[in-house]
């Protein structure tokens, strides 16, 4: 199935998605990777207010390549980064916030339970950064630039961002885990 979704996402938008479905997202997405995740959790632990809303948000695991021009920031290249690095921090992030979709690449080990009935993981083709940049229409703002260009939180307006493959749905089905388990079985047979 193919779905076109508009942000902010509602729970019913993502509950209908099943692993291997194709999704396109329009609206606003926020980039966040290692350092931004760490800072979000640190601020929330101290009870501080974030400078952006994660209500119905779409988090994009991406450290974009941006260029500053006279009229503001321009996206040069902005594909997904390895989501696995954020696996440990994601369950708490999802517990604290109503994030409805995470876009990344490579999947996330041990996160399917935390996603259940809350959020989906959408896979975008790794390395396809020129393609992704075409679908990002505007850099709305940037937070935490002190973390460096890749680690800052960039707020982006996108149109039909995709095709995204539902990698982990909100019912616990995880394509990456299925592929991994199959590969492990093949390897065990080879080792016999």
């Amino acid at each position, binding site marked *: 199935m193919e779905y076109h979704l508009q942000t902010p996402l509602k729970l019913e938008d993502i509950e209908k998605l099943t692993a291997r479905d194709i999704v396109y997202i329009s609206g606003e997405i926020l980039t966040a990777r290692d350092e931004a995740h760490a800072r979000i959790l640190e601020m929330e632990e101290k009870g501080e207010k974030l400078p952006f809303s994660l209500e119905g948000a779409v988090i994009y695991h991406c450290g974009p390549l941006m260029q500053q021009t006279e009229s503001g920031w321009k996206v*040069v290249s902005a594909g997904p980064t390895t989501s696995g690095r954020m696996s440990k921090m994601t369950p708490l992030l999802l517990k604290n916030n109503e994030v409805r979709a995470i876009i990344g690449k*490579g999947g996330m080990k041990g996160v399917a339970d935390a996603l259940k009935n809350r959020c989906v993981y959408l896979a975008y083709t790794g390395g396809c950064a020129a393609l992704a940049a075409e679908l990002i229409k505007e850099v709305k703002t940037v937070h935490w630039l002190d973390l*460096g260009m890749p680690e800052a939180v960039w707020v982006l307006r996108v149109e039909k961002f995709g095709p995204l*493959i539902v990698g982990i749905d909100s019912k616990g089905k995880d394509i990456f885990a*299925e*592929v991994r388990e199959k590969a492990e079985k093949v*390897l065990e047979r080879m080792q016999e």
Partner: protein
Amino acid sequence: MSSKISRETFIRSIADLLRKAEIELPDDVVDALRKAEAIEENQVAKSQLQAILKNIELAKNHAVPMCQDTGIMIFFAELGNEFQPGFDLEAAIKEAVTLATVEVPLRPNAVDPLSRKNSGDNTGSGIPDIHWKLVPGKQLKITAAPKGAGSENMSSLRMLNPTETGSIKNFVLETVVNAGGMPCPPLTIGVGIGGSFDAAARLAKEALLEPLDAPMNEFEKEILNAVNALGIGCMGLGGSTTALAVHVKTAHCHTASLPVAINIQCWANRHASIVFGEVE
């Protein structure tokens, strides 16, 4: 080209070389990806490979880096013993990296390993990383091979026991299974066997520069077939091509050791070369 190249021309050429490496893949890499797409039967994997091919074309046509992770700056230099630049080559390469960072542009990726502070221009202590090899002749060949972190992070090195040559294949397979979709397959796998702790890693990295259409020996083919039998596929979503090629490089090592390094390369096997100096 005379070996009396000016410093300015040299810096210009290296900055242009980096641009080329970032926006355009070598033909053998594109051909291998096209073949992988043609034979893929898993529809999800096929769609991923099609996106990759479309992205390659777009990056080339728009002259933008194909991946936002423009990598850490690595160079392989073969310096002819009769090549006389008349200026500090390392300092000039560093300047070219700074220039390319602004011009191409490149994402500033170089950070202090502990404070994580970004230098902002892709240079720093030990970066760019330049591997020098002294060769006979009057030429200087420089290969730029910017390396992204997604695949580099999935690389591995083990000091095996000398009697464990039979487990090298298994080490590669375990590394690939553990990596799953994280290093952006289809991969190129460089395996360095022998030498010493650091020499094995260097061999593995050099193996990534081998043309993908270069014939593989029986050992390399055996590993490649086993890797592709795992079914991890493009981006770890399942499929028939997990790796495009496996290249092994060896060096003599101590009788008591067997260093094995596996350097994992994503589909964007970026590298470009230039030769300075008199034609011999």
